[in-house]
């Protein structure tokens, strides 16, 4: 393997490591929410620094490869995609951090009724599943798998779209739980963004492997 190939492989490994870190952050923020585990939520917040540091490391490694090797064709597309995927993953890291902050700020555990009526848990599952499959699509250059993400993101959009009505209904029936309802609505909004970021990532994977630009189509 040439030095160039080794460095490209290192970037791919780092992006996968970033993916695993961000997924772990999202899983922990879900667990913190379900168990009302403020310590775990604080752990997620503390680990956000690691996500940021890894983002900078990947950016810097890509920059070095651009400067030293002038990559072209599939190598160029890979690096461009890696840079954008890196940014998207860092934003998902921010989302996990934001959700964890709500848990830390929340005075009490969210009650089961609101989690069910808003489909928040399905949204969490959907986001995590999309992000996990996006990682596999990136790792194995599987654009068929990447393409499934678009329709699965629609499911998250649908839950998000229904959230206003569901939350209004819940508030009318549980006036003393307005704060809780607003926290849940905010978490739904954030998870909807995980779907959008994953969709962007899927577009980047297809660009990298097939040289097709799907953005804004």
């Amino acid at each position, binding site marked *: 393997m040439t030095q160039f*190939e080794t460095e490209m492989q290192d970037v791919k490994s780092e992006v996968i490591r970033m993916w695993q870190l961000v997924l772990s952050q999202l899983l922990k923020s879900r667990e913190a929410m379900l168990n009302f585990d403020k310590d775990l939520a604080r752990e997620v917040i503390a680990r956000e620094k690691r996500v940021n540091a890894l983002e900078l490391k990947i950016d810097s490694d890509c920059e070095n490869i651009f400067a030293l090797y002038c990559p*072209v*064709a599939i190598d160029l597309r890979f690096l461009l995609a890696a840079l954008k995927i890196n940014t998207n993953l860092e934003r998902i890291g921010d989302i996990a951090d934001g959700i964890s902050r709500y848990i830390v700020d929340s005075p009490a555990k969210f009650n089961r009724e609101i989690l069910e009526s808003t489909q928040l848990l399905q949204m969490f599952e959907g986001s995590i599943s999309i992000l996990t499959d996006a990682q596999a699509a990136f790792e194995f250059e599987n654009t068929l798998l990447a393409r499934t993400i678009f329709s699965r993101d629609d499911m998250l959009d649908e839950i998000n779209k229904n959230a206003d009505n569901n939350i209004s209904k819940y508030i009318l029936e549980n006036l003393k739980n307005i704060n809780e309802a607003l926290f849940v609505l905010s978490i739904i909004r954030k998870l909807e963004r995980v779907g959008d970021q994953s969709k962007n990532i899927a577009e980047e994977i297809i660009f990298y492997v097939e*040289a097709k630009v799907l953005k804004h189509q």
Partner: protein
Amino acid sequence: MENTILKAIDFDAYFGENHVVKKINMEIPKNNVVAVMGPSGCGKTTFLRCINRMHELIEGATTKGKMMLNNEDVYGMHPIFVRHKIGMVFQRPNPFPNLSIYDNVIAGYKLNGMKIAKRDKDIIVEQSLQKAALWNEVKDSLHKKGTFLSGGQQQRLCIARAIAMEPEVLLLDEPTSALDPISTSNIEVLLHELKNNYTIIIVTHNMQQAGRVSDKTAFFYMGELIEYDITKNMFTNPQDKRTQNYITGRFS
């Protein structure tokens, strides 16, 4: 192609029995820079030398097929006329060592016995050196020997010498491979200027240079034209696996 100036049709070149350029079909658009790249021995320089009939100067070298310049086969023209119309600049700057800068520029006329008035000579020298972006650097030393110039200046002098004959096409065979990055950059800037008046075909091993200077790029491998496309496409999404392997440095 509507504005094609040069067209190779089923073009083959041989050194004796050795078939070095195979069935090339290629259209060169007017006022474009076309880069030709490929590994050593792939036939790119031979192809270039076939365009202005330099190939046939080597003993045992033959060609087959057609090379059309403005719809006329260059192999039906007088070779001297072909070389007026299709100028060439080589890898190493090669100004005539005993001639002044001035005489180097008009060497083509002198060597072909073409008599021109002093006033016309002055105009040709000034215009050619200006087009080659060398005039400002040498206008006060036109009668010094060309070999006193730096490598980059000598190469621009060679370009001025080629331009002086008012060709339609300029062939450049790795024109910057012997130059430092600054001289290389000067030549590349010059190519962008020159393509307004000439069609340029450049053989280069430097892929970044091909990307920087050319509108279209051709990839040759083992005498065959593997891929020929708009440069941007070639370097972002080549269609042939061999092109991709070559430009990404994974050629075995």
